[in-house]
């Protein structure tokens, strides 16, 4: 399976665009809490969706460190390479 950062970013953006209230603009700088307005459980639900798309496991303590979509993409790509 594709492991490039670009591919992972596309998966992340895809999941967000498919959500009931798709955000207007997305970039690496988008803050998950302030820009997307996701609460702690919504963030975990969002990551769960991405875990399945990429077939990886993102431990909850890693999620806690993530603030922006760029952070998320970096974390996912590190995990994906290690998997």
């Amino acid at each position, binding site marked *: 399976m594709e492991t490039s950062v670009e591919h992972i970013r596309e998966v992340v953006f895809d999941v967000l665009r498919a959500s009931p209230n798709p955000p207007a603009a997305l970039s690496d700088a988008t803050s998950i809490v302030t820009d997307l307005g996701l*609460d*702690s*459980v*919504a963030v*975990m*639900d969002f990551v*769960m969706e991405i*875990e*399945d798309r990429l*077939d*990886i*496991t993102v*431990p*909850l*303590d890693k999620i806690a460190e993530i603030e922006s979509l760029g952070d998320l993409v970096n974390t996912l790509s590190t995990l994906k390479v290690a998997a």
Partner: protein
Amino acid sequence: MALFDKFTPLRAAYERHESAGDNPFSVVFDRVLSPTEALIGNREILLLGTNNYLGLTYDKAVVASAVEALQALGSGTTGSRIANGSYQGHRELERALADFYGRRHAMVFSTGYQANLGILSAIAGKHDHLLLDADCHASIYDGARLGYAQVTRFRHNDPDDLRARLRRLADAPGDKIVVVEGIYSMLGDTAPLAAFAAVKREFGAYLVVDEAHSLGVLGASGRGLAEAAGVEAECDFIVGTFSKSLGGVGGFCVSDMEGFDILRVVSRPYMFTASPPPAVIAATLEALHQLRARPALRQRLADNARRLYNGLAGRGFTLGPEPNPVVSAIMPGPEVAFAFWSRLLAAGLYTNVSLPPATPRGLALLRSSVSAAHTPEQIDRALDMFAAVGRELGLIAPERARAAG
């Protein structure tokens, strides 16, 4: 930037509800009269949101045991069981719990929250994996955070999703520990425990079941969902609380695991906190006795739960999936939930508002919990109040529809 600036948006919302007089998070009962009634000012309120499932808080034998222990043994233990010693009652209650569950070991904690903190943080080590149901209670998530294990979340009540995640972790070293609940506290739904037990067996994982809302509620002897589902032997650890069906405060874990008692000197939430006071222990012990001796309480609870659930469903409310003692009406959003809640309270009915992130899938809930102590008339009165407010707020069809139904 001031220390509390980070709370500014939350504080604005809180103060808005406070000034509108509809803040469910600051309710004070001036006097609680019984398991089902209280006074706010001089208004009598019907209580439908207390988790007092068996209504044992005013049971004569329970109260008498607490009074006797209070007088004989004093108001508090003033210390932890590890640093300052156990009272005989602590051991007696642990033996009674082990006997009730047919297990070799039991451990008592000072709260139900600490039972989850204490067990999960201790049994899962640095290289182990905790797999938590997405809808598990905050205490389970906090217990996972307190320890050093890797934590994974699986889709609520979805054994296939658990299997997929266990498969993903198959090559990772360390033990896998799955955590689910008996009855989930927000929507009152139960776990498909037999299916989870099968997945657990398939992967050689361990299974922890939190029966906080199902102890005294489900199972032929009231032991909870594991008993009802016939999979007690597959449940390696049962965690529970004294503060719901047993009417006290405290938590416990029972298990047959070899060497279980070592947790007493490993589990920080057990070691570094004061042990439950004698009156609480004595009351809980007697409540457990009542739970075992009076299966009729469980029957009455089930009857009341069905009466409320079917009554609300029949009046057109959208509810959780199963008629259990937790009955939640799904509201269109938080503002309606607050309005509904405050109109019910004004009419004399106390319920709970549950909001995200405490609820699954971003749901705003008006949550009720039924007691064996409710009379059918009280449930009917609650249903009438629900229907009146539901019509006022346009959530259900007008009266005519009900007469026809």
